[in-house]
């Protein structure tokens, strides 16, 4: 019998983290770009590592697009790419001081928004400047939301997941 590479308790944690990510985004969907997704994905990247955070994020992207009826390459691909870049940023900044992580969250938020602009420009032949101009308010809102949530929730969420790992998975 081969040894499993992932423990049941860790699998349960990943499922729970996916549910939290998906439910908060669905609950906040009526508020444009006001979300906890950025802080959660950055914390997941810092605590779980890139492969597991990517797994959680991919499930979230699939669920989100299936629920909202936007499961097409033009929406799902830039969304996945945007979140994946945020995972890389979150992982790279995992030992950085909070102000740097907050800055990273703003850059990640902007890159996430621009991924949609880029895909629409490449495949829908839209005017990218007009798209970004029309999207600027939503970009500002996403950045503001990221700053506030990362500032207040990043460290507590990171501590909570690390504590769970210490008590249930790495013991």
């Amino acid at each position: 019998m081969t040894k499993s590479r992932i423990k049941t308790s860790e699998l349960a944690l990943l499922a729970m983290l996916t549910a939290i990510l998906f439910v908060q985004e669905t609950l906040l969907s009526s508020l444009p770009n006001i979300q906890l997704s950025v802080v959660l994905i950055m914390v997941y990247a810092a605590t779980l590592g890139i492969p597991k955070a990517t797994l959680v994020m991919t499930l979230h992207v699939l669920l989100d697009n299936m629920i909202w009826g936007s499961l097409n390459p033009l929406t799902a691909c830039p969304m996945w790419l945007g979140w994946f870049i945020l995972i890389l940023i979150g992982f790279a900044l995992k030992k950085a001081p909070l102000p740097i992580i907050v800055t990273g969250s703003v850059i990640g938020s902007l890159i996430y928004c621009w991924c949609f602009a880029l895909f629409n420009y490449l495949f829908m032949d839209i005017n990218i400047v007009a798209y970004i101009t029309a999207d600027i308010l939503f970009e500002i809102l996403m950045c503001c939301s990221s700053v506030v949530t990362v500032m207040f929730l990043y460290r507590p969420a990171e501590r909570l997941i690390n504590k769970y790992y210490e008590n249930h998975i790495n013991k």
Partner: protein
Amino acid sequence: MRKQLFIKIAIAVLVVAIAVSSVIIYKKLHTPVADVGGGVTIELVDLEGNKEEKRLDFDEGDTLFDLLCSNYEVTYEETGYGILLLGIDDIQTDFTSTYIAIYINGEYSNLGLSSIILEEGNVYSFREMRV
């Protein structure tokens, strides 16, 4: 510790203020009202391709949404992203299996109903589409 919390709260208040002012400024700059009066053509096209056309006049300060509401039976939802058009007269959609796409002079509109400005001579086509 207290100083840190104070700094965080101050930054949060500043950021929220930036967000609120951005929304206010954006709304003021992007109110899609007509600069001058004129006339436009409104087309309704259902899934089978049946077309109904009307020539309508508008005044300065009118919006496309106002024009639709005063001439058709309009079903819509107000969302944080603007007005979500669900139905016009006999064309009724659920936004899950069918939706209404907007074309301006034959070109797909990247703007939603709340952001389109009325312009003299334009043809605004509302086409029922499958998702």
